[in-house]
């Protein structure tokens, strides 16, 4: 009995770390440009697809190659996201309508999903982990669950350092607090925002690659990751990476519990109910200071 809960807990935290990573990648774009990039979910899936693609063409990689491939996947996705960020911000510089990003990021997400559908059809892809299952509490847990946790911790530490200790990171985290003051201070606003898009790509690219064996790699699976990442973001509080790191696993465990106890079709419902509840009770999230509420 307790073993079942232990499995739920470990897998939930592992999957939740993926949500935490997506939430952190939302955060860095959000604090620099106010944009919540909907396409992040499909970029994440693309990262996982790269793991699949490599195995399909070259066979299972050795450990050394696999480790080298993580930054490759991260950088490819980062480049894609930087291009997307550039296109997304184009209309923002000449149009009065500052909400166009809501549509363009969603459109990009749909385009990526559509291309994936054309290239590999409607079925989900399976990626086999190169690692053996790891014993935890006497059970065997697929290694990627644990590696997702490690990756979330890694990016958390890197982001906290970058955003608070380096001048560039400081500027990125300051931009959307007062964009006009940022411009007046001579900050290279667009370039910093593009950098933030790129960094968000490093995060989701590496996350997708590392967690490929435990996530659903399909043309239509991205929305679920976007939503769960968003739920983690809202619970943790927008702009708070600490919040995201804690909230992600909470969402993951809740989703696992729902899957095991109620059935997979209720997982989305549970996430939605968590989202609505937190927005109704504490819109600014647990660690956030800026409220979602606008009256």
């Amino acid at each position: 009995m307790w073993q079942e809960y232990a499995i739920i807990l470990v897998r939930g935290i592992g999957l939740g770390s993926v949500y935490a990573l997506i939430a952190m990648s939302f955060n860095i774009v959000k604090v620099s440009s106010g944009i919540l990039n909907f396409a992040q979910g499909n970029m994440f899936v693309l990262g996982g697809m790269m793991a699949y693609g490599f195995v399909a063409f070259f066979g299972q990689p050795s450990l050394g190659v696999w480790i080298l491939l993580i930054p490759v996947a991260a950088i490819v996705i980062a480049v894609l996201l930087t291009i997307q960020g550039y296109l997304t911000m184009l209309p923002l510089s000449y149009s009065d309508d500052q909400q166009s990003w809501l549509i363009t990021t969603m459109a990009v997400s749909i385009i990526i999903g559509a291309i994936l559908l054309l290239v590999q059809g409607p079925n989900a892809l399976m990626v086999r982990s190169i690692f053996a299952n790891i014993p935890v509490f006497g059970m065997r847990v697929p290694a990627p669950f644990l590696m997702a946790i490690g990756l979330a911790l890694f990016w958390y530490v890197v982001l906290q350092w970058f955003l608070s200790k380096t001048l560039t990171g400081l500027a990125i985290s300051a931009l959307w607090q007062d964009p006009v003051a940022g411009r007046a201070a001579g900050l290279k606003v667009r370039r910093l925002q593009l950098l933030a898009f790129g960094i968000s790509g490093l995060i989701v690219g590496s996350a997708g690659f590392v967690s490929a064996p435990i996530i659903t790699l399909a043309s239509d699976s991205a929305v679920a990751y976007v939503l769960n990442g968003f739920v983690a973001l809202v619970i943790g509080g927008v702009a708070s990476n600490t919040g995201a790191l804690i909230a992600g696993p909470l969402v993951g465990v809740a989703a696992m519990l729902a899957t095991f106890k109620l059935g997979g079709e209720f997982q989305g419902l549970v996430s939605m109910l968590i989202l609505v509840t937190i927005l109704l009770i504490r819109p600014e999230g647990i660690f956030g200071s800026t409220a979602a509420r606008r009256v």
Partner: protein
Amino acid sequence: MNAKVSTSGDIAAAALAPSGRALPLLDRSARIQLVIGILILVVATIVPSALGQAYWIGIVNLAIIYVVASIFMGLLLVDAGQVSFGHGAVFGAAAYAVGIACGMHGLSFPVGIVFGVLAALVIGVLFALPALRVQWFYLGFVTLSAAMVFPQMLFAFNTLTNGINGISIPLPQLNAPILFGLSALSIMTLVLGIAAIATSAIFPKTLLGRRMRVASASPEAAQSLGISPGRMRFIAFMIASFGTGLAGVLYPPTVGFVSPNAFHLDMSILFFFAVIVGGKGQPLGTIAGVTLLYLLPNVFLAQLIEYRPLVYGTVAFLVMLLMPAGIVGGVVRWLTLRQKPQRMPALQFGHIVDSAQVSLPRPEGNAIEIKDVRKAFGSVVAINNVTLTVRRGEIHGLVGANGSGKTSLLNVLNGFSASDAGTVKVNGRDVTSLRAREVAKLGVGRTFQTPRIFEQLSAWDNVQIGLDAKLSSNPTLVSEHFVGSLRDILGPLRTESIPHGQRRLLEVIRVILTDADILLLDEPAAGLSPEERLAFAALLRDLRDKLGLTIIFVEHDLDLVARVADRVTVLESGTVIASGDVASVWNDPKVKPLFVSVRHA
């Protein structure tokens, strides 16, 4: 249709002001779009039926149903400012309710319609509740997740819904031709389509539509006019769900079948994109959007079904990059850019009150009593223990440097921000804990430092929202002649052509027309020329003497203050440093050094 609408509009307008020329209900662009839109719907419905092309009848009917759903989603987005990515769930709930009622339980279609609309309204209520709390993309994500969960629930409750097998709904009698070769279904679809497009054109011009747009553009301004933004949102969700529900109930007979896979997130996204791609707020917009995103890909890519999402993602993306106002919106904007710039004639206030109107005796008592009020934002203290009394029927000047707390004081006074300590009374009634909307309804009208003139409303509608609101039981004393001549000036004017200085004056006129008996005016004279200032001073005196109003106004021009104010209060960094009649305040040694400066300006 169009002619009838205009006439009823004429009557309504004429009833307000016998002296002025009546305005047409719809502007030219909306009128033309409405006519074209109805023609398109009629032709598209009749031609395939006349030719007996079953494929085309089906696809056109479905396209019109989607147009209807998109129009109501657009109403939610444009008129009420609510982002819903989950409108497909509202539509799907209605369709499934019909499926369950008619397909599984054999009830008649009219009964199915009732169930369908009710189901849509239930989902609408579920969407409206978070909308009272959160806005913008947060709301978008909540509704998006609802749209994602909806088909999962259809699977989960398969005993109720038949799960993955779906429900077939054979309603052959609806598809049989009954009139000019048109089936009952085609007729219903056409009528609903015409009603929807007419609604999208006319709704912004109704009282409710105007209020909704104000609430969406500026919740503060809405509250100051006694409008509840929350109620407006709720009503918007109800209207949108009702309309979408009607569209949804026509889906099962058109397609003959409902299954969970038909109501995926894609449908919600289609509705949303149709509005954006076509052009927000353009009656023809959704027709253009659905044609481009649904109809054309379906006809030309019928064999290449898997390319459709690619087409519509790409179309939406390119339109946003190249024509941010949407296709129809872009055309309309291009046409307006070619119009000549307009000049607004100067406003004349001489006739605001009938000349026959005798001066009222000045009312007794205090209009406003502020006691020990304090307000801090974080560690910045905006108002520091202010005590201030304004007598009824007086003009009270509020002066002080920028940032000295004048606007913050007005905000506490009319309920926009809750004070940290102290009490505020209006006409003897304690309003400290009341909300802005409730304070407004006690007869307190106000204007804003940055004028709240809304480009979402026509020039005249910007003033009419004042007439719409009735903030006190005072009889309307503003002359009909004045209102009529104002309508003549503003009727043909585009809102963006109103110069900044005049915007403040229009906002002042707006609150006067609410019949409020206390006016809070925030820098009403900024940007006026010396001559206009003289006229404005005369207006303020008329409002006091002939309408018996109490006026508090924030002003930097001390000459203007000296000319009209009965009493003055001087603020400095949140504290009252002097208050009393103009002469004594001006000579106060504490005040003098503050204003040597401003006199130069």
